[in-house]
């Protein structure tokens, strides 16, 4: 707080972050005083049993949710002080999301799905289409611009979602079980793609998974247990 951000200060930092859902007897402590910092260009896998708080942590990191207590800092700036519109702008420009269930707009073409973040970035139509098309090409879906989600396989839908996450050139990609609905061969392909984004483009990737094979792609593995961080290891598995 207050201290100027040093060059080596973390990109994202959770300080004693707790997140509580519900109240009274239904109260659930999803996160309890979690400290976590992520540096630029890291590839972090977050694992843990279901209910361990790993998805909640990623939601907070992506500004989709806010901590009940504690602080979340982005490049040294506390998120709590930011207006809702600023958070929307952060979600738009700084983060790209990849979900287990793809979360594409139904009855909407792949191109329009990918272009969605650019609408809210205020980009004009011609540039939106050009950038969305090149993002689709980057994920290997050139030629499928007009396909609707229901005309694509699971792996292809996830590629569209990855293209959507990439289109606004984010610094961080947050992936919540990106391969959870895919077979192992497709999983491998998707992990290859995500890993290449980290290695070739230097995009920070934070990925929630419970699949050890996926987690093995990451350079750092954080394990959650009952709302706490149980272990945090760097280096190849």
């Amino acid at each position, binding site marked *: 707080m207050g201290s100027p951000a040093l060059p080596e200060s973390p990109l994202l930092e959770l300080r004693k972050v707790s997140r509580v859902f519900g109240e009274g007897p239904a109260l659930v402590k999803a996160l309890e005083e979690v400290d976590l910092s992520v540096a630029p260009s890291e590839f972090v896998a977050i694992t843990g049993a279901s209910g361990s708080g790993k998805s909640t942590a990623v*939601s907070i990191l*992506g500004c*989709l*949710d806010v901590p009940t207590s504690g602080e979340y800092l982005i490049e040294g700036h506390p998120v709590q002080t930011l207006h*809702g*519109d600023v958070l*929307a*702008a952060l*979600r*738009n*420009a700084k983060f790209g*999301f990849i*979900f287990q269930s793809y*979360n*594409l*707009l139904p*009855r909407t073409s792949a191109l329009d799905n990918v272009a*969605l*973040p650019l*609408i*809210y*970035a*205020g980009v004009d*139509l011609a540039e939106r289409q050009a950038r969305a098309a090149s993002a689709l090409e980057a994920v290997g879906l050139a030629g499928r611009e007009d396909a609707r989600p229901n005309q694509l396989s699971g792996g292809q839908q996830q590629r569209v979602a990855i293209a*959507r996450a990439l289109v*606004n050139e984010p610094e961080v990609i947050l992936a919540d079980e990106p391969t959870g609905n895919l077979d192992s061969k497709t999983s491998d392909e998707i992990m290859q793609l995500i890993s290449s984004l980290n290695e070739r483009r230097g995009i920070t990737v934070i990925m929630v998974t419970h699949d050890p094979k996926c987690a093995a792609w990451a350079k750092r593995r954080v394990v959650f247990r009952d709302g706490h961080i149980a272990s945090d290891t760097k280096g190849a598995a």
Partner: protein
Amino acid sequence: MNPRATISLALAALLRNRMRSALTMLGVVIGVAAVLMMESLGKGATAYIEATIAGMGSNILMVVPGSAHGRTGGPSSSGAPLFGPADLEALRRGARDVGLVSPVSQRPLRTVAGGLNRSTPVSGVSPDFLLIRGWSVVQGRTLSADDERQAAQVCVVGHTIETALFSGSTALGKELRIHDVSCRVVGVLESKGASAFGMDQDDVIFMPFSTFSRRITGTDRIGLMMAAARSADRIDDAKAQITNVLRQRRHVLAGEEDDFSVRDPREVQAVLGQVTGMLTTFLLGVAGISLLVGGIGIMNIMLVSVTERTREIGIRLAVGARSADILSQFLVEAVVLSALGGMVGIGLGLLASVGLARAIQVPFVVPGGAVPIAFGVSVLVGVVFGVFPARKAARLNPLAALRFE
């Protein structure tokens, strides 16, 4: 997000649920169409009444016995004495601004010509009468002062009589038997068509008042006098002079109420205008309620739509939509829905007005001011009833919306 993108997004969403959008619009369509029809028909009826009254002549006064505050003002209800020929003379001499004056004594009578007969309103009038009404003959001549003096057995007939009793051939010079009095047709009147109240104005026979009173009614008492002021701007003076002369002749004391009344068709027009105005207001109220119901329908469907599309909202929020973007998306959708309904309603309303105006034979009046107002109201309905669902959408928590099943 720019307005054009927002509107095309709204149109796309509405087209995805064509049937539902059309049904949701229906309330606004009916409301707007009803508003336009009421406006158009109300104005058409008013225009028609005005034209009819103007057609009677703009400087006419009608004098009847009985106080103006009596129930009908008619002679039988008030007990006030009828007028006589001397009253008529007094008005001719004493009321300076009265240019023309005529007694009008009317009875429905059986009229026979050849083998045909019909019951027709027959009136005894002075030669002034047709001048007062501004009514001219298309064949022959009008009634003359000589006819009146000699109580000549002559008459002037309306167009309907010529058609009905003379099978369309000319009535001029032919004999009619009216209530067993033989009578020669000396003129045929120009056709006036139906009145504002649907009565055939051409089903009439006029004869000299002297002939009518002597041969048919047997009395020279007069239940109605019709007068014309010298010009339209003298009409109030003429009215005052008639009142003066008649008060003297009928010995009405100062401070006492007149036992007769002088009526001005403009008053009738004002009353009719009030009646049509009230009716129009009432029906506009009904149409307004229909718009309200239409608005509630839109709100209902928009609320359903927000719930159905919770995940979509979550996705949009996750990729950077501000809550204002979500608000405007749903608000614009509601407004586009009701504005489209308004446009369809305007089209239908105008079509229905043309049809109805033709059916009830009043002129079709384009409700000029009502079209933009109706459109404005339909947009307003969309805004008013769209705000609540749109706010509900805009306030969703991104994470909760994404996880909504």
